[in-house]
């Protein structure tokens, strides 16, 4: 006997109807919840699937690369394996030094230009600044191989279309630095701009109210306040620069001797990976994992280090 039904009375159509509605609602709710759970689970699965490559790559790097890391690996020059001695491969000191020199020179000119141009983007509201911002955005999105072609045309062969003749300096580390530096500038610019724009307006205005000039405010107030962000910007750009292969592919030549002279040909870690990975020698291909492990280690230290350092500095200041 159901509640609300009077003994002996004819069945109430309203109650029947209500029961029908409730039954259908229960069913559709169960169905909707099932579908929802299924798809939410699929989303989680997508996340797991997306992260599998990351862990697979890290696993490959560590399992195949770790055994190469030794003192000799970092201090010896490479030897080319021959059929007689296919395991003689030496070390990668030339590539490490090459990377240091190339990225060092690139950083030397890219960091000041990038930071000052970033300050300009943050300070100025002129049309030129807007145009420059667009340009920087487009430049960061362009394939980096184009910068390699640029450095090749300008520095390696010297420009000789239309009768313009620059003194080409040939395949050299400087040409690589040029390409890498131009890659870094817009990255630093954009990141520095957003860091500088995060400085609260009242801080600026307090300086203005004290009668300081804009240049003084920028140097003494805005830049120190934004320093953690600026350091992050530079380190992130460096972490990109260290791993870039395409811009230097055309221009640095590939030397197998240790060489500190930036006007000569040089090796570089990413380029070394690119070349050794397709080598016919198994030992050279295996060694690539060692270089790659070290390279990824450097990149991740710069990348994670920049974030941790910025977070630490931010906390220290509070």
């Amino acid at each position, binding site marked *: 006997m159901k509640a609300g039904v009077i003994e002996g009375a004819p069945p109430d159509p309203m109650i029947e109807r209500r029961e029908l509605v409730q039954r259908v609602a229960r069913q559709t709710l169960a169905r909707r919840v099932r579908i929802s759970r299924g798809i939410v689970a699929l*989303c989680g699965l*997508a996340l797991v699937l*997306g*992260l599998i490559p990351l862990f697979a790559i890290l696993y490959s790097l560590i399992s195949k690369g770790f055994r190469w890391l030794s003192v000799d690996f970092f201090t010896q020059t490479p030897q080319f394996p021959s059929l007689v001695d296919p395991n003689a491969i030496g070390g990668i000191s030339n590539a490490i030094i090459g990377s240091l020199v190339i990225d060092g020179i690139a950083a030397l000119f890219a960091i000041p230009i990038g930071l000052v141009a970033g300050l300009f983007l943050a300070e100025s509201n002129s049309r030129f600044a807007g145009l*420059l911002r667009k340009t920087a955005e487009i430049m*960061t999105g362009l394939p980096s*191989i184009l910068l390699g*072609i640029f450095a090749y045309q300008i520095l390696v062969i010297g420009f000789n279309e239309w009768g313009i003749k620059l003194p080409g300096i040939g395949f050299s580390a400087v040409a690589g630095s040029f390409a890498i530096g131009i890659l870094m*500038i817009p990255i630093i610019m954009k990141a520095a701009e957003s860091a500088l724009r995060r400085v609260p307006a009242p801080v600026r205005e307090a300086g203005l109210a004290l009668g300081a000039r804009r240049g003084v405010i920028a140097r003494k107030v805005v830049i120190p306040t934004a320093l953690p962000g600026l350091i992050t910007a530079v380190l992130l750009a460096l972490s990109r620069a260290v791993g870039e292969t395409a811009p230097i*592919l055309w221009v640095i030549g590939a030397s197998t001797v240790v060489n500190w002279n930036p006007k000569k040909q040089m090796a570089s870690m990413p380029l070394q990976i690119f070349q050794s990975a397709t080598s016919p020698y198994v030992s050279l291909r295996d060694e690539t994992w060692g270089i790659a492990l070290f390279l990824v280690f450097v990149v991740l230290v710069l990348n994670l280090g920049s974030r941790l350092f910025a977070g630490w500095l931010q906390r220290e200041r509070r």
Partner: protein
Amino acid sequence: MATTPLLDNPNRPLTENPKGFSVKSDSAHWAVLYGVSGLFALICVVFLISIVVSSIPAWRHSGLSLIYGRVWNQGANTFGALPIIVGTLATTAIALFFAIPIGVGSALAIVHVLPHRLRILFSSLVELLAAVPSVVYGLWGLLVLAPWFESTVEPGLASITGHKFPFQSPPEGVSLLLAGCVLFIMILPIIAALSRDAIAVVPREQFEGALSLGATKWQVLRKVVLPGARIGIVGAVTLGTARALGETVAVAMVIGLNPLFPRSLFSTAATLASTIALQFQDASPLQVASLGALAVILMALTAIVNWFGRRLVAASAYSAGVL
């Protein structure tokens, strides 16, 4: 009235310069800013000119058949980029085919499924994928994925589909499909992180309001969150596309550089960027110019796609250089 302090003088000008403080004495500041920014602008202009000019001999030699020509044969000095353009579009399409559902799905999972504490961890892991240098992806694709594709994935796909198009040619490992998959891994962090940013800014109240009306989580995501984040997600996909079109080194290592029309997903192919990277060595001056022409095509393609994507994405991570 010579002794009246300047401040009390009702006739004094409010400031020397109506715009504010003595701008003149600030000129060094602006000179440096304009000078350095101008230098960068100059570099960009020279960059553009040098790429375009370096390709002029190729346009003179081949004309517009550089774009629609069907044969790329440096031995015969015939340079037609159509197969290469098709290869570029095909690898990008394969990458997007996987990256869009998985990227957007991970973004939804990060924002609306994971508990709050794990959110930052997984976001950082996804962004870490973007930090790995592309040459390492190429290395991994060539030495780990390619043998696996050759022995397992490609024969499996072929036997499931009965060796029909596009799975008909013999498995080689190094192939269009492998290049697409490597690209997928590389653009996944861009699509996932930028979609995550777009999804995270959909107001929490809308999400909760829809839930309170009795919608299930998926209904809310589909009817409220995804429409709200639509523009940002389209922007994320567009920027991912631009990256996939221009990726050089990783693709160069796994595509097998074969500038012919790809007959199946398992055949080797070529993309614009990888051709530029691999054919440069031992190239004749005319071939260098033709590669420059490929660079012009590539630059136009990526610049347009990029510009379009930038208009849709207001994301901080992208502009801050993380991705």
